[in-house]
């Protein structure tokens, strides 16, 4: 089945079985391996992408469901060559250990800050509660998202 959607701002067509797991389309058919798959059951958030701006799990979507949708993967966040403020903050605050959860956490954080530009630390923790980090790096992740929020509002992080 031919499926057409916007991927990181570009009109994209793929010819895949309609029930194919969308994370497999991204990683195996389109070669975008930034999106990870871990649990395959919606419990870890490694496969998080944005669909029409909203954070969703690409391991629980059939390819056909993306017909006509706007999809952003981690590769699309810095599409013009400059990093998103959330990505910059992750580097600055060392919020990455092994990095496997990072693409999903960053995209979930982008959606969170889109909905709530000035979250408390508790709201950040709650907003990222669907994304597991097994290196146990949550403190730095929350620090980074807090700093990105401040920067995106035009302030200077403390």
């Amino acid at each position, binding site marked *: 089945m031919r499926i057409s959607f916007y991927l990181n701002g570009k009109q994209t067509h793929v010819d895949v*079985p*309609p029930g194919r797991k969308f994370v497999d389309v991204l990683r195996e058919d389109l070669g975008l391996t930034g999106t990870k798959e871990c649990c395959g059951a919606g419990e870890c958030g490694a496969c998080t992408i944005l669909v029409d701006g909203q954070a969703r799990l690409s391991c629980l*979507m059939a390819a056909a469901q993306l017909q006509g949708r706007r999809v952003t993967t981690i590769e699309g966040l810095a599409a013009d060559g400059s990093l998103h403020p959330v990505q910059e903050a992750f580097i600055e605050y060392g919020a990455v250990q092994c990095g496997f959860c990072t693409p999903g956490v960053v995209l979930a954080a982008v959606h969170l800050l889109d909905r709530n530009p000035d979250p408390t630390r508790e709201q950040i923790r709650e907003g990222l509660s669907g994304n597991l980090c097994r290196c146990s790096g949550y403190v730095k992740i929350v620090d980074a998202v807090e700093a990105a929020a401040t920067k995106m509002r035009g302030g200077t992080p403390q």
Partner: protein
Amino acid sequence: MREVILPGSLDELWRSFEGKPQAAVYAGGTDLLVGLYNGLLNPEALICLDRIEELQGVGEQGESIRIGSCTTHAQLLDDPLVKSHLPVLWQAIRGIGSPLVRNMGTIGGNICTASPAGDTLPPLYALRAEVELRSKEGVRRMAIEDFIAGPGATRLQRAEILTCVWVKKPGEYNLHHFEKVGLRNALACSVVSMAALLRLALNGVVEKAALAWGSAGPTIVTCPEAEKKLIGEPLSMALLQEAAALVRKAVSPISDVRADADYRRIVAGNLLLRLCKVLK
């Protein structure tokens, strides 16, 4: 190759069923697609309901609130009617899965999955919700406790779907409370949950009560004996202890990987004791 059908309206849906009567129907996919992609299910086709406008959103008709079956949990958390009239449901939805799961999963999916641990179910039982079912042949409506037939089983017939949930605005209750006990806050299947609606008079006497427990039996457990025990008496820890003893008799939990039956039985009663704290 398994077909995925994306009807854009109910009329298109009925046509989809004509060719694929055995198709598996879903909306968010947070339950069905887990089974499918892990090889536990093998339906001949998938029908995804998420593009059917008629199944979306929350509205009011007089004293009733209509919740479209394909409204996501995230949409319900943002909805002013749910927030203002149905706090018990709002509290329950807030603890479902994770933000990612709530962006995808729908209230209709939570109901039709019919898990004893489905978090929207205890509030919907306590609110005496009704479900509206539609097929090409027509519409029928029934109480949620009649719709859910057992763990994972409903009264849905082939080529029939849940279109919406009807709830009367529960203006007669002034205390809404939901609590779930799980192994952690996010992404935790309920070990035991409880929805409670009470009307308390100014002097603290319970005038009306509706209570329901999740993960405490094959389907949601209600306990009219405990409700009767509370009604007409001033709310106190001693009174709640007496009612909790009745609750522990009424529930019939199982032992599984999350907890054993005895623990669930004790906790089901203890959740009721929490109402004393909620008042303070």
